Each structure stands twice: as C-alpha cells, then as structure tokens.
C-alpha cells in the first residue's frame, strides 16, 4: 500500500513531465507499473500473513495502526486485480479524454484508499482511508465534466455518500464516548462484556446507515444506478467490483468486532435489508434498457446476496459471501468493461441500438455472454459456486424462508441476463450496430483475462474457496 501511495503522489509529476516531453504513454505505463509493484508486495504480504498469522502494529489503545489479517489480504487481492486490469483498459478507453494524469492519480488514490480500509486496525484509520476512497471516487464519477449527466450523478453520489460519512463519524464519536478508544481489539473487548443499552443500539443504527450508503443497501441505494453508468467504464468496474464491496466489508468487520454482544439484533435487521435489496435490484434491472444501468441494478441485487451471506455470520455464510465478492468483482468487471467496449466503439448504451452487435464485435459479445451466464449462476461458471455456497449456508443456519427468497431472486436475474444475451448475440443487427468494429487489442486483453478467470474459477473452485474460507475464519476470530 505504501508503494501505491508513492506512485499516486508521483503520477501527476510524471504526467507533467510526459506532457512536456510529448510522450504521453509514460504516465499510463507508470500507473500500471505502480499497480504491478503493489501486486508483488501484496503477494509477499499474503505469504507472510498465511504463514505467521495477522500482522499488527497496534500496541497502545489510542494510536492509529494497521492490522493485516487474511480477511484484509483477501479483499486487497480482489482490489489490486480489478484495479490493474481497469488501468490497462483505461489506456485506450480514456485516450479521447483530457486530464489523464489526474485520472490515474485519482485511480491509484481510490485503490490505495480501499486497501487502507481493509488493512485498518482501528476505526479512525479506517475512516481516514474511507474518506480518501470516497473523495477520489466522487471526482472520478464526475470526471467527464463536459457533459451534464456525470455532474448530476456525481453530485447526487457526493451528497449521499458524504452524509453517510458524517453518520459514520457520529457513530465513531459515540463508540469513543462509551469506551475511550477506537482500536478494534479494545473496542471488542470493552463492548463485548457490557449489558446492551440504548446508546449501543443508536450507534448500531448509525453504523448500519453510514456504511449502508456505500454498500447500496436498499433505502440508500439511489446514488448507485446513476453513478455507475455515468462514470467511465473502468471506473464503473472498480466501483461495482471493489468500492461497493468495501462498504460491505467495513460494515461486517465493525459489526462482528464491535457489536458482537448484540448480534441477534443486527443479524435479523441486515437479513431483512439484504432480501429487500435483492428484490429491488433484480426487479428494477428487469425494466432497464440501458446496458450499464441494467448492470448497476444487478450490482445492487448482488450486494443483497453478499449481505445475506454476511448476515448469517457463520463460517460457511462468510465463506460464500467472500467468494462471491471475488466472483462478483471478476464478473462485473468483465461485464462493465465489455459494455465500455460497446460504448467506445459505437457511442451508445441503449440496448435497442446495440441489438445484434455480435456480427461486428464477435469477441466482446461472446465474452459478455460468458459473464452474463456466470453471474446468472448457471453451473459450470464461477457465479454458481458462490451463490450456491450462500444458499447452502442459509439452509444450514435454518433460514429456509430467506434462502428460498434468494433462490427466487437468482431465477429473476437469469431472466434479464438471458434477455441481455438474446439482444446482444442473437438479434438482427440495427443500422448503428452495423457500423461497429472490434475493440482495440489493449482493451480486449483485460476482458479476456477476466473471462478466463471466470472459467478457471468455475472449473477449479477448490483453491479459491479455500482462500475465502481462510479469510472468513480470520474475520470471525478477531
């Protein structure tokens, strides 16, 4: 993460130098190499953590510190993977935009913020990186400032998310007032033994609302279907695959560690919200004609599945959810990047105008179909395994009704993804899609990598499930 921050700060300098020297590709390569270096350090960290257990710099109850366990490392792996592919994709996708040095700075800053959130050892460190992540993402959503839609989406996102951030801060202040510390381990030790009082419930509500805005839990989801389509495609992939999951991560980490004593209360609340989130997401996605909007509503539905797995709070449920976070990041990354390729080549997101585009962009369309099949939980691909694990964990925990509702939702999602495949692959081409040409190679590479990952994880889920299981155990043991 240090490496990422250094690269983030130096990117504008390199961008400026590259501009002076009239060789602009340097800053793209520089950002990509920054992410690659981070990936290497992350691998070393993974080896370290899996051998020796959690690394921690927390000694005193009142200092800011990092605590790195498998849960955090697992999330960081997902972020860096998606971030790296999105950066490679951006090279061609963003070529027509200006201000690219700022773009890469913000991109690296967002990924650094997300990694900081998952490595934080106390609430305040989490909040600092949370704000870094949020601030950069506001700017990235509104990046194409010459058009009205990104500005409107960005403003809506900013207001909702900043209100969520303030709510988290208020919850933090109550926790601080109750215990005098913000360190996760100390908070857990102090609050685990107290008799639940009304202030604890107030704080719990504030935490769920505050993180729920980022995690797109249903009453607070309205920023997402605007912000995702209007952001540039690589940013949509990162928002959907990583940023929203960070909200879910922070929520579950705080709930498990700090509010262990009132687990029954939040478990039921979260479960009801999760089911609501799934239904709204899936039903709204059925009605969409805009490909990126459809994917955005589907993200809300997938968040419902993930929160449902989290709210079971058993090792199986957490394993399923974490595995689904990984799969969802891969699949949604794939789908958003494919949609971005259509937008880049044709200039429209309207499904009616994209009909039959397979004739002209065969590779992208087939890869989009693979992603759609994977996320609709059709067996040989990866989405099936994680959704199956979540449902199984729900049944094992005795939540038969909720598990049945989730299965209904999965079937709903099959309906609109089959429609997507039908429209893109099978229909007769329209005049607009006739004019399309295949996407450039450097945009296809990340898409192909993601599709290959879908198939590989689908056929050999074993090692990936084991990784998610280790992360789930670490989450429950802190």
């Amino acid at each position, binding site marked *: 993460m240090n490496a990422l921050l250094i690269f983030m700060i130096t990117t504008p300098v390199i961008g400026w130098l590259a501009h002076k020297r009239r060789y602009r590709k340097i800053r793209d390569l520089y950002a990509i190499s920054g992410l690659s270096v981070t990936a290497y350090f992350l691998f070393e960290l993974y080896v370290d953590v899996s051998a020796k257990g959690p690394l921690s710099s927390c000694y005193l109850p009142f200092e800011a510190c990092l605590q790195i366990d498998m849960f955090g490392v697992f999330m960081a792996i997902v972020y860096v993977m998606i971030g790296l592919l999105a950066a490679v994709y951006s090279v061609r996708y963003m070529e027509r935009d200006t201000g690219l040095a700022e773009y890469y700075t913000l991109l690296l800053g967002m990924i650094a913020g997300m990694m900081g959130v998952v490595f934080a050892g106390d609430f305040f460190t989490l909040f600092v990186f949370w704000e870094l992540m949020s*601030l950069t993402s506001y700017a990235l959503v509104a990046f194409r400032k010459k058009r009205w839609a990104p500005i409107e989406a960005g*403003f809506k996102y900013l207001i909702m998310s900043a209100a969520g951030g303030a709510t988290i801060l208020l919850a933090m202040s109550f926790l601080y007032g109750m215990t005098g510390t913000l360190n996760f381990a100390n908070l857990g030790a102090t609050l685990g033994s107290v008799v639940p009082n009304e202030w604890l419930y107030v704080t719990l509500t504030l935490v769920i609302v505050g993180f729920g805005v980022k995690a797109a839990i249903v009453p607070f989801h309205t920023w997402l279907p605007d912000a995702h389509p209007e952001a540039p495609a690589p940013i949509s992939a990162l928002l959907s695959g990583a940023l929203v999951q960070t909200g879910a991560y922070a929520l579950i980490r705080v709930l498990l560690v700090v509010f262990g004593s009132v687990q029954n209360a939040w478990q039921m609340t979260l479960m009801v919200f999760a089911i609501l989130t799934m239904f709204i997401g899936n039903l709204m996605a059925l009605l969409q004609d805009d490909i990126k909007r459809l994917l955005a509503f589907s993200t809300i539905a997938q968040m419902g599945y993930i929160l449902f797995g989290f709210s079971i709070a058993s090792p199986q449920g957490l394993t399923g959810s974490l595995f689904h976070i990984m799969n969802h990041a891969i699949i949604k990354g794939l789908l958003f990047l494919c949609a971005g390729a259509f937008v880049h080549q044709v200039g429209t997101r309207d499904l009616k105008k994209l009909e039959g585009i397979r004739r002209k962009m065969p590779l992208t369309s087939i890869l989009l179909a693979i992603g759609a099949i994977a996320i609709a939980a059709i067996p040989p691909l990866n989405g099936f395994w994680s959704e199956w694990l979540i449902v199984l964990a729900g049944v094992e925990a005795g939540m038969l009704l909720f598990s049945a509702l989730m299965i209904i939702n999965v079937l709903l999602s099959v309906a609109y993804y089959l429609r997507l495949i039908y429209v893109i692959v099978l229909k007769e081409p329209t005049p607009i899609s006739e004019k399309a040409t295949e996407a450039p190679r450097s945009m296809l590479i990340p898409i192909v990598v993601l599709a290959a990952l879908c198939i590989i994880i689908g056929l050999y889920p074993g090692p990936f499930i084991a990784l998610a299981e280790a992360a789930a155990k670490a989450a429950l043991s802190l």
Partner: protein
Amino acid sequence: MIPLSYYLACSIALYTIGMYCLAIKRNMIRLVLGIEILINAAHLNFIAFSAHLNQGYIDPLGSSIVIMSIVFAGCVTAVALTIVTYAYKHYGTLDVRKLRRLKG
C-alpha cells in the same frame, strides 16, 4: 461545568438540522452546508466526550481526530463546490430540483 448531556443534546439537534437541510433545501450550496453541519455535529460530540471521559484532563485522541476530520470536511466541501460550479455551468441554476434528468 456544563453536564455532558447538554452537549449530546446539542450535537443530536445539529445532526437533525443537517439531515433536515439535506432533505428540504433546494439550493445546492445549502446542501453542501448541510453536510458540513452533519460533520460538525460529530465533531462536537468528540470534543465533549474527550473532555468528560476522564475527570481532570482532556483526552488528546478526541481532539486529534477532530483536527484530522476537519481537513476531510474541507476536502469534501472543495470537491462538492467544484461539482456545484460545473452543475451551474451546465444548468444555469443552483436549484437541485432541476437536476432530475437521471431517473435514480
């Protein structure tokens, strides 16, 4: 010394005012100010707790958090006002009701 509950009541009132402002006001600048009020409610809470947590001295953790958080509040406002400026260029108004072209 003023009891802690007065401060808490004040910060909760501030939080409510901020939320009311976000829900009711139509001017974009006022929405940004609403965010500021929300954040300041939390700041007041931190400061009040840091003074009352231990009798006799003020806990430095609360103050340091507030100082850091003020910086973030400033950053959020800066980004928000930038977006407001661009919104004004596109729409020619600061009325948030006019920003309804996306369906949300």
